[in-house]
């Protein structure tokens, strides 16, 4: 499954651990929430980056104390019709100021990229190679955004206000 990060297909440095996989010596690991929470101190002490896979039905508040210490948070879309992780993503970015890697995992198609970018995701485990290759093109599909979110894209309402004021100059 190709990983897109920073707009490009990249190698995934993280290894995903299951609840009972033996802990590797070094290297970057993505750990299920349950295991992470029960053993956070030990996990964070080892060499290599640590990220956490956070299920979409688990309260994000529980993750907040660790946000400064994890290198990645992977949120889950069990199917692309299940949109709970969009709310989790915005809360992480906009309320808790999480600045690390925010990864979308699960059933990820090109048709969600714009929504996900706007919700704060910057990393995508894409299901199909063709969708991963189409990332940059698909991400630019929209130039108009009606809602303000933490991604900082200028909203339609804001652009209208700018237009109004610039038209007002000199009249």
């Amino acid at each position, binding site marked *: 499954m190709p990983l897109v990060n920073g707009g490009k297909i990249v190698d995934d440095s993280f290894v995903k651990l299951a609840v009972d996989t033996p802990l590797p010596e070094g290297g970057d690991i993505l750990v299920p929430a349950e295991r992470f929470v029960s053993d956070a101190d030990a996990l964070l002490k080892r060499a290599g980056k640590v990220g956490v896979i956070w299920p979409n039905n688990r309260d994000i508040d529980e993750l907040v104390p660790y946000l400064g210490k994890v290198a990645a948070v992977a949120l889950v879309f069990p199917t*692309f*019709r*299940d*949109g*709970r992780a*969009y*709310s*989790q993503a*915005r809360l992480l970015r906009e*309320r808790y100021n999480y600045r690390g890697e925010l990864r979308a995992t699960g059933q990820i*198609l090109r*048709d969600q990229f*714009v*929504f*996900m970018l*706007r*919700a704060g995701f910057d990393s995508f485990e894409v299901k*199909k190679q*063709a969708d991963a290759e189409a990332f940059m093109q698909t991400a630019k*599909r*929209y*130039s*108009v*955004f*009606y*809602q*303000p*979110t933490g991604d900082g894209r200028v*909203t*339609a*309402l804001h*652009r*209208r*206000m700018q237009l*109004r004021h610039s038209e007002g100059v000199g009249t």
Partner: protein
Amino acid sequence: MYAYDEIDRTLVNERVSEFRDQVKRRLSGELTEDEFKILRLQNGVYLQLHAYMFRVAIPYGTLATNQLRALAHVARKYDRGYGHFTTRQNIQFNWIKLAELPDALADLAKVGIHAMQTSGNNMRNVTSDQWAGVAPGEIEDPRIWSELIRQHTTLHPEFSFLPRKFKIAITASDHDRAAIKIHDIGLRLIKNEKGETGFGVLVGGGLGRTPFIAKTIKHFVHGRDILSYIEAILRVYNQYGRRDNIYKARIKILVHELGTEKFSREVEEEWQHIRNSLLQIDDEVIEDIRSRFTYPAYEKLPHMPDELRQAAADRDFEAWRKNSVAPHKVQGYSIVTISLKPTGGPPGDATAEQMDALADLADKYSFGEIRVGHEQNLALPHVAKRDLPALWKSLDKLGLATPNVNLITDIIACPGLDYCSLANARSIPIAQELTRRFANHELANLIGRLHINISGCINACGHHHVGHIGILGVEKNGEEVYQITIGGRADESAALGNLIGPGVKFDEVADVVEDIVEAYLALRERPEELFIETVKRLGVEPFKERVYATR
């Protein structure tokens, strides 16, 4: 009328090109039907019994004549020459070919019409009073706010994959024509004691298999805060709404399971985090949207022009005028409802020819504006009273002057088993039979205001729970059986109807309705007592007796 600016136009065009790519990927097999399903639903495309069905949004029920002509064009070019107006200010086309859909959308985009989010588990078309901006006594034009909310809910990056569909309706009149109490969010536009605009917010209304009337969760949300407050409701719903069972996924179930108080506390808590953010709207933003709504340059006209006085001698004209013409906020003008419920016809259908002709009449008599109401009728919102007789003659020629608005034959019905893959029973033939049964105008007039609503399955698209007489078709041992309720209503006193007894067969439905009506005529205290009032006064019992005594 709201005029799209370059920004709105760009977005709709970008959406069309995205959908074109999605259809292409589906046709090439790159997308599975399962993957494509969600994407097509976000663009109003259902797979029905016989073909794809295409649902187009008419936000807050306002159409310009070039838009109505574009709908006629789609009916003619891509469909079978007609369209069906729904209970949520949409129009549906029943025979669209998938490969042609992107072109149909592109044709509509040219006149500022889209089909975004007219189906799927997202925020649906924002609906409002079809008399918005012209109804006497209205607090202010609710379409300004409807448009603001329409924009905010379009392609929302957080709330496009909700547990279930989500519908918002807005009213600004004491008399609720937008049925806000049966919506996921109902907004009642009000002024506070300082004269500032805000909203009473109701949540959790809805019909389907578990009907609920919406509950007020906040008595006043200031206009500047309405987007953040809606966002707070949606965030609570998106995270905690049930996703394990499609029949328990609407927000009404969450509100019911948490209790109104706990639900509103959750919303309040979320809202406190986000109310002082970019979601706060300043007056200038509202002004900007308001400035793109244009209003007619009304003339100063007499209250009772000679033309109207003379036409009063014509009984047919008078019969139509009494039921179809309503007071306008400007003297000398009227709001004219166009009945799409001809005797023997399917409720809510209009042919391409009727749409084109109506567009011409709207240009001539209604400042180029048409409205669509949840009762599946249309309206011309600004007709000079002096023009009423001439308009009536033209409408009559088009088969659009059936004098039955708000009467027993002004029936709301879903498409039912004739089109819909979810239906268990036929709806349209029941409606057609009832319009024939009560075709005598004198009789219908004697009965007075009476709303019949018909749904062909438990999903309740025909809003049967809130019909004065509600008819629900179900399937029992391979046969269509109809359950009859009475006493429901969808207005400001919204209530769910009560079952009168065991279900009846297809052939018996019209007889049963006749029995109910006869019972009412015998029981009412005076001619002015409406059916719904008699039911409220006496309950179900006397009607039940009348219906089942001989069965």
